[in-house]
């Protein structure tokens, strides 16, 4: 019971590295990347104002939507959730790709 906070975090990191499949790690990296891009845009918007508002919405929305799609893909392809989903990992990935292509069309139109 004498675990310190540092112990908890180091164990968490070790377990994550050991037990998480490589593909989920890739998705996690991508999600962190989405959050970083979204935050950067939000900070820029706070700094210079909302003037090309449509461009801000497109850029920021693209980051948020990518994050959401990645989260969905992660849930569907996580082996622990296999009992709740009928489709294979490949079909989930195909859906993910389709949603992304649609999203980037919309974003490109909305950028102005």
């Amino acid at each position, binding site marked *: 019971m004498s675990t310190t906070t540092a112990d908890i975090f180091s164990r968490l990191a070790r377990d994550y590295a050991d037990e998480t*499949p*490589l*593909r989920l790690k*890739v*998705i996690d990296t*991508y999600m962190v*990347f*989405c959050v970083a*891009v979204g935050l*950067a*845009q939000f900070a*820029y918007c706070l700094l*210079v104002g909302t*003037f*090309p508002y449509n*461009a*801000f919405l*497109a*850029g*920021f929305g*693209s*980051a948020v939507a*990518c994050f959401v799609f*990645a989260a969905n893909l992660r849930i569907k392809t996580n*082996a622990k959730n*296999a009992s709740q989903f009928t489709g294979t*990992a490949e079909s989930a*990935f195909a859906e993910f*790709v389709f949603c*992304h292509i649609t999203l*980037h069309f919309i*974003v*490109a139109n909305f*950028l*102005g």
Partner: protein
Amino acid sequence: MRFLTTVAVASLAFGGAWLGVVEAKSVSGDRVLVLVPKVEAAKLYSQFLDSLTGRGFDISVRAATNTSVALQVDGVRTYDHAVVLSPESKKLGANLSVRDFVSFVDDGGNLVLTASSELSELGRKLAARFGVEYERRGTAVIDHVAHLRAINDTSDHTLVAAGPPKTAAPVLSKQFAHPQSNPVYFKGIAHKYEPSNPMLISVLTGSRTTYSAPIGSDANEGAISLSGKALGLVSVFQTRNNARVAFSGSAALFSDALLSQEGGANKQFTTDISQWVLQEKAVLRETAHRHYLASTGERPEHYRISNEIVYEIDLSVYHDDAWHPYNSKDVQFEAIMLDPYIRATLNSTESTDPKTTATYHGDIKLPDRYGTFTFRVNYKRTGYSNVDVKDTVGIWPLRHDEYPRFLSAAYPYYISSLVMAVGFLALCAAWMWSAEPKTKRTTKQKSN
């Protein structure tokens, strides 16, 4: 033959000179009707009438009893100006009514109306139409301090010496602005005037010791109805159509006796008043105005929201026989759609015709609002004729393909959406080329 040509040339030259003299100085015409009680009475005003003739007016002196005198025939003015020096006549000309005079003014005719202590009902009603309320019949303006001290010490206290108030500036010449200027001698009836009326300008008022009371009464307080600066002696009125009317409580003010009075300024005063009323001075006009896009210099059929435009207007003022540039710092432009969206002061700029016009210039940014706007310069200043210039202009929104694109401010957004697309491709690649753990995981799954 040679003799004949000489005669022809001489007569031409003479004719030209003659035309030059007679050419009216007034902007609105040179036909003046002068109504006097009897034709012989015109002699009393000979100096004033001669000055009108000398200024190029075509004067018709008629007796007030002459029933053939009409101001308008079939709705067309027969005179450009009318001077009524017959305040006591109950009937004027062809039984002219208040309505005839008002209709004459509505049609652009100018009037000089004089009064006296025995002012007729007609003159009283006519003045009331213009917000000038004369005192009761039988009253006179009295001043025991400021009056004409006649020879032999028989000074007449009803012959008061008065000065113009400051508001009269554009109507009178500059010498009256001087506090020590000679007084104007006045003998007649007082009137009430409304100082807040923007169309009525008081040009001669009583001083602190002036009052109005029935003639012959001892001036106890009950008898005095009007006194001091509130007591109007001469007021002028300018209508919305720039016709001008003068109300003088004294016909004697224009008489030879007072015009030639030493130490008095009646001559200059009557000249100033008549010049103003007969449209010889302080006449303002717009000669041209234009508006166009600042970028191209062209005037489009309609503007777009937030366009940068240039508005220019040329203004001239008439005085001393000619049009001169009108210089002022308070000419304003308005862009109105129910309310003024823009009200900007125009700056004086280089004129194309600096001898006669002044050009006012404004760099205007149109509002970020579409609709039908009115571009207006509504210039109304005391003593000057009104200038009201209006243009109806459509302001349209941008078309779908006219919005600005590739803004530098939006570059971070463009880049980040591009980065997101690249990130997606990278994820796809990583997903597809990371196949080995899949088998590991499925075996693991099965073993569970």
